């Protein structure tokens, strides 16, 4: 039987999510036995226009070239999976979407006319149909392996979208909200990381994006009681997953209702 063909494409990103594959250790060699890796520039093979069964996309759309390129990736792939915050919500660089970013470009680059960049950084879903999304900044090897295994078995990958609190409780970490009055984003953040921050006694900063039911109104009220300022609260939503719909909505609500 022919092995399924896999491509890994990079758009605007830090390259960190591709490391979920490159950091697999010996399992990387197993993966190379299970699938035919036809395009994965970081690992070697380069054939960006190849027809594949599975295309993994890292990074957001932030340049005119990427607008065109993502369409071709879609045409060439049976199944398109996004990995990480950039591909799934636009990433941290989507912070430019709320600003006049052409001004930003000229603040950084003395000759801004040489820089080809859109005014926005957007999720892959906003441009083409996406078959499955893996959330996280960054995604980890466990998530990528589970997703690929499911696809190889011919079943849909499981969408892990419950709140981080469940995982945190299973690990028996002391709750940082209860014990330290820290404004932890865990209740509004989807699971997947392994509750790393609370394990170190640190408040979650929502790098995995919104969980399935986001009740920011109640949580923000509670944190207001801890003395967290309006600006601080807004920054916590307007962070790595700033372009996720549930967080954007939360920012608008905090801006309107915080002082009441």
């Amino acid at each position, binding site marked *: 039987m022919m092995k399924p063909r896999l491509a890994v494409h*990079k758009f605007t990103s830090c390259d*960190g999510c591709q490391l979920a594959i490159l950091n697999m250790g010996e399992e990387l060699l197993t993966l190379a036995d299970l699938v035919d890796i036809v395009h994965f520039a970081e690992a*070697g093979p380069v054939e960006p226009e190849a027809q594949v069964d599975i295309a993994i996309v890292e990074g957001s759309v932030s340049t005119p070239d990427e607008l065109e390129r993502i369409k071709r990736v879609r045409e060439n792939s049976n199944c398109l999976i996004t990995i990480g915050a950039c591909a799934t919500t636009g990433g941290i660089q989507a912070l430019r979407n709320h600003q006049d970013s052409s001004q930003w470009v000229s*603040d950084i680059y003395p000759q801004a006319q040489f*820089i080809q960049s859109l005014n926005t950084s957007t999720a892959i879903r906003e441009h083409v149909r996406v078959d499955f999304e893996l959330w996280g900044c960054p995604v980890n090897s466990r998530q990528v392996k589970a997703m690929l295994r499911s696809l190889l078995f011919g079943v849909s990958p499981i969408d892990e979208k419950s709140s981080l609190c469940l995982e945190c409780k299973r690990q028996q970490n002391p709750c940082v909200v209860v014990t330290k009055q820290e404004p932890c984003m865990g209740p509004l953040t989807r699971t997947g990381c392994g509750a790393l921050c609370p394990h*170190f006694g*640190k408040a979650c900063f929502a790098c995995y994006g919104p969980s399935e039911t986001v009740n920011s109104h109640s949580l923000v009220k509670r944190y207001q009681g801890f003395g967290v300022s309006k600006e601080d609260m807004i920054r916590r939503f307007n962070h790595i997953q700033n372009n996720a719909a549930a967080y954007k909505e939360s920012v608008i609500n905090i801006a309107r209702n915080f002082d009441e």
Partner: protein
Amino acid sequence: MNKRELEIKVPVLARVEGEGSLELLIEGEELREAKLSIFEPPRLFEKFLEGRHYTEVPDLVARICGICPVAYQMSAVHALEGLFDTRISEWIRAMRRVYYCGEWIESHALHIHLLALPDFLGYQSAPEMAKDHPLAVKRGLRIQALGNDLIKLFGGRSVNPVGAEVGGFSGAPTKKEVNTLYSRLDQCIDESAELLEWLLTFSLPESNQDFPGVSLRHEYEYPMNEGRLASSDGLNIPVDAFENHFVERQVPHSTAFQCYRDDKAYLVGPLARCVLNSQHLNKQVKTILDAAKLKLNVGNSYHSLIARAMEILHAASEAKDLLRNYVKPNTTREKIITKAGVAIAATEAPRGTLWHRYEIDADGLVCKARIVPPTSQNQARIEADLRHALTTLGLYRPEEELRFQAEQIIRNYDPCISCATHFLDLRVNRQ
């Protein structure tokens, strides 16, 4: 007239990633132009750091680079602690070195095995190479995994780790967690030594170009988080004088700035570090190098392969020394008293000196940020090296050979992982 015009394209060059191309213009026997173009989509990090609280900076800057987030965190926390006059404990200082050792080991092992070795041994990728050299590739992946696990001890994960804070660490691993990892370090040290000895048997091309190497230098240790900026041609300045000597220029063919020191191209990274700090290298590293009778030369970028393996062995040995009598402390971070002003620091990222500068207001918010990464510092050097190497090889050579040589030269600098793309699309126009 025998005029040959060459355009070599590197469509997936990274960090400085995204799109890059190399343009060569050859007229007769002369290489008229060698431009390495870099089209990393700009992410405008310096701008969205503005208005952020200093406590958010380590988690934000980690996201500039997935391969060396620890370096970004370390330059940031040292800059801010310098401004706030924070005195960190010996434990924090030592464990930050362990954390950084993890990143050097992981990044160098990844570069050697997944990016560089396929060039030297004639394969397209590491999985392909693993079919003929299974033990060497698996050994490399084990070393890489240990580096990642050292980062995880203090950061929870090796990409965008979460434990580093201004003032110290959010938490500390238990003695038991440290012991589990500690017991693997002996094997890692042995395997790193084998790796270094093996690479030293390779016959590396000769090259002797005249240009300086730059790195931090420290009085009594191999430089990571502290020290002065030194160069192989006599520079010796404090890191906050960086802007008096180093200038970044924008060139039309790149979204990465090119950095020059007193108008000269220079080299940062493991090779420059090894040469400038050889007296502080681990003894075993020196013994192996002496036995092979190789004299490291900043002017030969192929030696960077050896320098990376040397630093893996050094870092694994140092991590073992620092974790030997590990005790989990009562506090893992110092109290911070904020202050307005300018915060500057440089640390040694796997790819070289990473310089940060922040302006902080009285509320602890960032007003302005400037970050000079290693790859922008090496870019002018890469172009000069390409020019030299291709001319030495002979510009009359077949395109395929010129292309391979150009790719290998670029990879010697490990510009950033996707930079080291394994193909160049060569176009030749003959006139």
